């Protein structure tokens, strides 16, 4: 009995042909029936595409290939559905933001600039964001890394470590405005400090801390136990093992985690409105007086709602995205630099 290993297959152009037919049919249907809008038509096109291709494949190739094609189509469709909002958002911000995004925008504050008129810039807010996020990082990163070191290297499932883990999880879920309210009541109302960049940094630190703890914890857990044992067996004390062997091995991932936490809090708006409010001028001192920040700048310009201020709001949003992308790129570079080499 001779059997060939080759089965019948659809031609290579089959998916493209099916897609073309499906799009054509969907558009025709959309024009004649009640299916309205680009989104509805797209979904319809995908469904028709799946139907055409599956039937065709089932007839020629058999059941297994038909199922494979359905699954492949669904996976690509979900990918597109997930990526589309992101790309559309980036596109929107870039095209609208680029209008007034230039050196002048980056090098001027909003001091003495009327909301109605073009001009002014984001410099005061950039300075504020840099300082607030910088101070928050200085507070949250040492505490976060030391907490993670305690949890992974020393506690190993004790009662205190379980409690810490639990509260870190709880902190992860704190809405940012609640962190802002906490600092507002504790730092400004109760302790009597002024609104300042420092107060904002404190609330951002609260938001960063759990992210830093969690990522550092995960990275430390990835360090093979072999290395700790090898170090201890050389007669190296535990604390030196942690500093010289464990931390350097995990440092790439820890830096990435810290940068992601920085990127996350750089875009926070609500806690800043409660803790440092708004400012139109450059305030180089994070410890006294209101300080602007990029997200609150966007919020402020948006609420003025004049054509000039809307342009500035979009440019501010673009600044924020570029800032976060810069942090992320820097994190990747640093992580690559520190990654163990073979």
């Amino acid at each position, binding site marked *: 009995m001779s059997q060939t290993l080759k089965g019948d297959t659809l031609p290579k152009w089959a998916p493209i042909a099916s897609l073309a037919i499906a799009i054509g049919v969907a558009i025709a249907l959309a024009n004649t029936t009640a299916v309205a809008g680009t989104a509805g038509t797209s979904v319809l096109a995908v469904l028709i595409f799946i139907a055409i291709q599956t039937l065709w494949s089932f007839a020629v190739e058999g059941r297994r290939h038909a199922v494979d094609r359905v699954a492949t189509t669904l996976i690509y469709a979900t990918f597109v559905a997930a990526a589309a909002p992101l790309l559309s958002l980036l596109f929107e911000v870039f095209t609208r933001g680029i209008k007034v995004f230039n050196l002048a925008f980056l090098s001027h504050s909003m001091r003495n600039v009327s909301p109605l008129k073009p001009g002014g810039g984001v410099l005061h807010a950039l300075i504020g964001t840099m300082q607030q996020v910088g101070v928050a990082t200085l507070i949250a990163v040492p505490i976060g890394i030391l907490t993670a070191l305690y949890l992974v290297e020393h506690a190993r499932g004790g009662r205190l470590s379980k409690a810490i883990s639990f509260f870190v999880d709880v902190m992860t879920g704190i809405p940012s405005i609640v962190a802002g309210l906490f600092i507002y009541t504790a730092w400004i109302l109760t302790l009597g400090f002024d609104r300042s960049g420092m107060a904002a940094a404190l609330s951002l630190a609260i938001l960063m801390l759990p992210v830093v703890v969690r990522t550092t914890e995960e990275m430390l857990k990835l360090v093979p136990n072999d290395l700790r044992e090898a170090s201890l067996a050389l*007669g*190296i*004390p535990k604390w030196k093992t942690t500093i010289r062997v464990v931390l350097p091995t995990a440092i790439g991932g820890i830096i990435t985690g810290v940068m992601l936490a920085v990127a996350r809090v750089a875009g926070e708006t609500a806690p800043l409105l409660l803790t440092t409010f708004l400012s139109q001028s450059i305030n180089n001192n994070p410890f006294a007086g209101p300080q602007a920040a990029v997200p609150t700048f966007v919020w402020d310009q948006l609420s003025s709602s004049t054509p000039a201020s809307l342009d500035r709001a979009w440019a501010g949003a673009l600044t924020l995205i570029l800032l976060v992308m810069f942090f992320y790129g820097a994190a990747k570079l640093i992580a690559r630099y*520190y990654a163990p080499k*073979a």
Partner: protein
Amino acid sequence: MAKRIDVTNLNSYYGNFRAVADVSLTIEPKSVTSFIGPSGCGKSTVLRSLNRMHEVIPGAYVTGSVELDGEDIYGSGVDPVNVRRTIGMVFQRPNPFPTMSIRENVLAGIKLDSKRHSKIELEEIVERSLTGANLWKEVKDRLDRPGAGLSGGQQQRLCIARAIAVEPDVLLMDEPCSALDPISTIAIEDLIHQLKDEFTIVIVTHNMQQAARVSQTTAFFNLEATGEPGKLIEINPTTQIFSAPREKSTEDYISGRFG
């Protein structure tokens, strides 16, 4: 400065589980002692109990005494860090520090102690340790390359160089060749032959031919059933163990009737 080890009534526990029961044996200086036995019989646990690495595992502890030239390493006031400095260890899988160069790996144990060393002194230690581990010729031109870039056999010799760099009196080896190919294994075995002139060596191995080739004394461990603690069945000169073992189960094991 090789030292003798006297183990008396050693019991090693993992939490409530007793992994090793009542082991008493003597390890002679300047010789190679091998531990053989089936998986789970506790030979690695005994080995790790000899330099206080057993207790690194959470919940693990030891009773009994292990005397190094008459001084109990489990005595009160004994610092495990000093014990491990005196009794070095090489592990089953080569584990060079991935963030360090070959040179830094060798010096890891030296640099991390509190003493200060001159640059020339450190270079001497690197050359002496790598030569001692038969690795100097292969790596002397690339000491600043990462240790993780070496082959498996070279990595294991790097780990041996790292262990002997701190000048221990005893060297414990936990299946040092089981992750290596035959050529690298021969290289390590040759090295063990040379090292025994300076160190007391204890080696755990699954390979009975290896035990026969490298060791002067062999200890056979066994367990009655899974869940029971491992026990020392007999310890005798290697030639005797492999020609006329005292115990029936030793003979069964080395002749391949079980295990």
